[in-house]
């Protein structure tokens, strides 16, 4: 059984279902994965996984050729049991949980010449978040990163991306049995950065992954996250927060692969859009394979359109191959902060700027709390306020 629905919102068509694009009738499981760039044709833009993407921006990252740039890594003193090391190309492939799932990602892995590996030794419990900042200096960069959480380890890793770059990456996240990992990826790029990333996670038995993605910056960001269950009793929570202004394209694709019994997945992504050319895409695929009995899954995407012209696409897709599930559902809704809501708040003395802030903060508040890292939560609220200031400036210009 395949359940797909598609909602798309613009200012004038607040929410429509079943818009005329074909349902992918091939199973999500059939998509190829490979370290060989040639295994993937150069996308034309008609493919299911590329049809919403800004190929013009991503194109430089699809060429099978080296890039000579780097990101600057700012790494704190790592606690005992945690290491960050360079890994040879052969090791990098070997230690990745699977091969890349699209051409951009295959190019990133092929030309990263090895990988950086952040490794948390088995039974290591790190209380303080490990905060790594990578900064682009306007270069063309390919990256391959391994995050390896050893058995029964427990850690929070924050990777913040700043500056600007044309950056593609392949990130492998490996949770051994009973590992707990809170991984936060912050896309706080400058406004001209272009970023195509694939994050693939494998969850061992009884492991727990909390993966949060926050995308505020960049001209075009396309981030695909996959989580595959390799052992029973594991759970994954994937949270996403994005805020697109005029000129920004923010795309998040997700794939949760339930291949073993008794695993739980929750996907919760929320986005706000402001500005006539703001554009966001969310595609959430969940596959419950025949073996995956007693699966419990729910995915949700909500978008809040703040101004005319902005467009949010939202495509949840649930494939269920077994009748023996504990629960499976999805929800997708795109709403507008409309003139009537604005009038209501303003008629109570609340200014236009403040009204917008009230609504947007309210929209994101519960999600931000889920990230589970107090310092990140605080800075995010500030970052969102900053986004709103941009929106207010833009609207003021429009009115002028």
């Amino acid at each position: 059984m395949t359940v797909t629905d598609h909602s798309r919102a613009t200012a004038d068509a607040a929410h429509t279902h079943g818009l005329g694009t074909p349902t992918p009738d091939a199973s999500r499981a059939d998509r190829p994965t490979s370290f060989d760039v040639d295994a993937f044709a150069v996308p034309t833009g008609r493919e299911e996984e590329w049809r919403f993407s800004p190929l013009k921006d991503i194109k430089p990252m699809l060429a099978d050729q080296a890039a000579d740039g780097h990101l600057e890594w700012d790494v704190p003193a790592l606690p005992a049991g945690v290491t960050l090391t360079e890994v040879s190309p052969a090791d990098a492939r070997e230690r990745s949980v699977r091969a890349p799932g699209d051409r951009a990602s295959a190019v990133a892995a092929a030309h990263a010449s090895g990988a950086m590996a952040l490794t948390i030794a088995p039974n290591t419990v790190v209380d303080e978040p490990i905060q790594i900042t990578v900064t682009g200096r306007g270069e063309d960069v390919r990256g391959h990163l391994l995050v390896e959480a050893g058995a029964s380890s427990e850690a929070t890793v924050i990777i913040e991306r700043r500056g600007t770059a044309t950056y593609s990456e392949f990130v492998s996240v490996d949770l051994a049995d009973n590992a707990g990992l809170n991984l936060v990826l912050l896309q706080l790029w400058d406004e001209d950065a272009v970023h195509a990333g694939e994050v693939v996670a494998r969850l061992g038995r009884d492991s727990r992954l909390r993966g949060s993605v926050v995308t505020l910056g960049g001209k075009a960001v396309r981030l695909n996250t996959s989580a595959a269950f390799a052992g029973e009793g594991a759970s994954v929570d994937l949270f996403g927060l994005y805020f697109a202004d005029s000129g920004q394209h923010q795309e998040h694709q997700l794939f949760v692969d339930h291949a073993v019994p008794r695993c739980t997945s929750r996907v919760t992504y929320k986005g706000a859009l402001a500005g006539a050319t703001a554009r966001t895409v969310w595609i959430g695929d969940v596959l419950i394979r025949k073996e995956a009995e007693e699966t419990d899954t729910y995915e949700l995407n909500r978008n809040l359109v703040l101004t005319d012209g902005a467009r949010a696409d939202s495509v949840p897709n649930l494939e269920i191959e077994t009748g023996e599930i504990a629960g499976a559902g999805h929800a997708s809704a795109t709403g507008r902060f409309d003139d009537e809501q604005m009038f209501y708040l303003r008629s109570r003395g609340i200014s236009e700027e403040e009204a917008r802030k009230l609504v947007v903060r309210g929209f994101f508040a519960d999600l931000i709390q889920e990230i589970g890292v107090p310092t990140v939560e605080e800075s995010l609220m500030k970052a969102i306020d900053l986004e709103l200031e941009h929106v207010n400036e833009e609207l003021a210009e429009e009115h002028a």
Partner: protein
Amino acid sequence: MSTLEIKNLHASVETPEGTKQILKGVDLTINSGETHAIMGPNGSGKSTLAYSLAGHPKYEITEGSVTLDGEDVLAMSVDERAKAGMFLAMQYPVEVPGVSVSNFLRTAKTAIDGEAPKLRTWVKDVKKSMDDLRMDSSFAERNVNEGFSGGEKKRHEILQMELLAPKIAVLDETDSGLDVDALRIVSEGVNRVKDNTGLGIMLITHYTRILKYIQPDFVHVFVNGQIAEQGGRELADRLEAEGYDRFLASA
């Protein structure tokens, strides 16, 4: 002592069929402590009058003036009007997802007063007002009007009126759709605010039932975008008995 003065107010709205004139010269003065009931048939323009006073962007004022204590209300933005002391309890209060009632009330109070209310007294005031309006304290954490019943929305409007303490309040069919118990609770709320703050009230209604609970000082019959007749309480009783036919025939 405050005075709201509406003079020769004309307002129109853009429709697909063209500009539609709705208000055709409204004259009305409301002083502090006075309650003016406005009664009129469906579509006569009562809500339009209410929205025009609050500054809804859909309605264009084409002629006339509105002043509050001499200040030009029409020159004010929507939030400035609220800060100047105007309040509109809406016929159809709007849902605002993601914003809790308590956050909304505190933000509004802060905006109106120009400073945040003292936390301790504020919490007490909100609780008391909610108790008086028989609103369960769980409403404070719910999103503004989301999933509220018709009656709950109306109580929430009066709650705001009580906490924001305006000079002049326009109540647009606050009584419609309420059962007798709810009507009594809401009316008591309105009377309490009036006793405590001495505000002036424009009470738009279809039914004389509410006038058993809230004593009007004046009754105005609103027909075809204008006030067609004014009187005291007895006029309401006559309308109840006769309906609006007499006015519609001549309109």
